[in-house]
């Protein structure tokens, strides 16, 4: 049971096993690296199966219906049925589509999500230890943006291309608040390494920086392209946007990639703001740390699903206005205020610093609310029904033209 306290013993045991089989040390290292990469890539993909089921059930319950409950007990085998259906679908490639790019785009999209996982610290001493992890996360995020552009172009369909342009515009606009909000934990932990950020969270950063956590959360939901920001890829809008020409397994890769990305956002939020793998007993037993991280990430994913089931879609111009005119200035102000106050309170203990920053965040939030009210007064009033006026708007068909023969 010693591996419960030190998981690297598993790696040592595997190494001894491979050396015992007569492999050279260099080949053993290579084999262990490949095994580790396979495990890190396969684990989240298997977990996606459960996430798909959970999301469908949760959204269904929010919408006052049952969700899948025929295939297997409680519908637990539903994702397997989905995968079977998508696997057996005909793999259509549109005529005159760019074959190589058409084939590459789903792979790039899924790669952009899986590449986020090596930087995540999974427990004390296990998981990623990338020195510039925070910037690495941003870099990999841009890879998924690229995949969408390639997908929209290669389908040889001008609606797909238009949808791809708008999606990419949305994603690069929301990258700015994400980067600014990511800078706040870096500031508070004095390091870009995610392991150091987790180690510096004696007080969870969500207490010291709730506003950057909120900005990161909202902007990440938009970055992933989920409701309420999925105007550009929902089935009922612009005919499913950039992935209209994709069917079968290629669509399944986009689909699974989107769910995995949402869960990865939960994992990153947990690492950056909710203490990552820290919890009672996690220092002694790293496996427990992994469990805590999973729990926190799953709770955040539940909030994301909750948001999906609750809010209506945001229109494209409202979406872009929201990021450029509200989230980015707010993130800038919070970043500057946090930097100044952190320098002032650098000698205080963990809790006074956190509470001081909490107060600053609350003040900024209240000022932002007041500013929002003033802006709302200037906008056009919503069309609200007056008493006795029903329907609110009436469609009058145009007058029929006189027929030619009269």
């Amino acid at each position, binding site marked *: 049971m010693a591996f419960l306290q030190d998981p690297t013993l598993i790696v040592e045991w595997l190494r001894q096993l491979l050396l015992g089989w007569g492999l050279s040390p260099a080949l053993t290292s290579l084999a262990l690296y490949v095994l580790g990469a396979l495990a890190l890539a396969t684990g989240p993909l298997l977990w996606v199966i459960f996430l798909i089921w959970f999301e469908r059930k949760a959204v269904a319950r929010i919408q006052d219906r049952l969700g899948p409950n025929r295939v297997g007990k409680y519908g637990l085998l539903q994702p397997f049925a989905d995968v079977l259906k998508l696997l057996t679908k005909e793999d259509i490639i549109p005529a005159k589509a*760019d074959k190589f790019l058409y084939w590459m785009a789903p792979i790039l999209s899924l790669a952009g999500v899986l590449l986020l996982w090596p930087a995540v610290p999974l427990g004390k001493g296990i998981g990623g230890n990338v020195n510039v992890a925070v910037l690495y996360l941003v*870099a990999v995020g841009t890879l998924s*943006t690229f995949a969408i*552009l390639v997908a929209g172009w290669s389908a*040889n369909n001008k609606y797909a291309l238009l949808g791809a342009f708008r999606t990419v515009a949305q994603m690069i606009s929301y990258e700015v608040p994400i980067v600014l909000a990511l800078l706040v934990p870096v500031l508070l932990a004095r390091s870009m390494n995610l392991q150091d950020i987790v180690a510096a969270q004696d007080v969870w950063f969500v207490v010291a920086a709730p506003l950057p956590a909120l900005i990161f959360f909202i902007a990440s939901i938009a970055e992933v392209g989920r409701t309420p920001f999925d105007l550009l890829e929902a089935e009922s809008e612009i005919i499913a946007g950039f992935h209209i020409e994709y069917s079968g397994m290629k669509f399944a890769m986009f689909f699974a990639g989107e769910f995995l990305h949402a869960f990865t956002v939960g994992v990153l939020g947990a690492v950056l703001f909710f203490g990552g793998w820290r919890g009672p007993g996690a220092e002694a037993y790293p496996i427990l740390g992994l469990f805590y991280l999973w729990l926190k990430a799953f709770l955040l994913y539940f909030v994301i699903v909750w948001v999906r089931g609750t809010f209506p879609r945001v229109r494209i111009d409202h979406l872009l206005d929201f990021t450029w005119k509200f989230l980015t200035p707010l993130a800038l102000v919070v970043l500057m205020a946090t930097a100044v106050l952190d320098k002032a309170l650098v000698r205080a203990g963990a809790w006074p610093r956190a509470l001081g920053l909490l107060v600053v965040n609350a003040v900024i939030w209240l000022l932002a609310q007041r500013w929002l009210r003033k802006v709302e007064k200037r906008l056009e009033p919503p069309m609200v029904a007056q008493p006795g006026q029903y329907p609110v708007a009436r469609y009058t068909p145009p007058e029929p033209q006189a027929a030619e023969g009269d």
Partner: protein
Amino acid sequence: MVTTFVFLLTAVVMLVAALIAVLKDNLVHAAMGLVVTLFGTAVLFVLMEAYFLAVAQVVIYVGAIAILIVFSIMLTRRVGAAWGAQTNPTWPFALLVAGLLTVLVTRMVRAWAPDQVLPAAAAVPADMTARLGAALVDPNGYVVPFEVASVLLLAALIGAVYVAWGGRKAEKETHK
């Protein structure tokens, strides 16, 4: 041994992708070749232990500049239209100039023989990124180039917005 293998692989992939970027008629494929070259450069930066710059390369070049280039290719083209030949008829002279330049530089490098002339390279300090950050805002350091670069970016931002916007305003007036 592993670093040599990675370097050779990256160099080969990078150069082949660069050739695709300048030789292909299909400009979207050429842009993809550019993206692979940019990733290859990032790998070279990692081999040189400039980790921050490697990730910054991916964020700035692949994440912004390459997307911008692909956007403008897609915006100035009808979907499904033929590309046509994209190379000038005077390409042999271009090949001559480029070839001469490359041969000249390679001969200079060989003549200098840096591997024999220079002492062995020192190690990179572990906190290089922190030192870079400190140097960029240090008044005795490089704060002036940093600020000048920021002003340059601001000017480019305003200029690009104005150029792209001014065109639309002129269009609206001619349509009236």
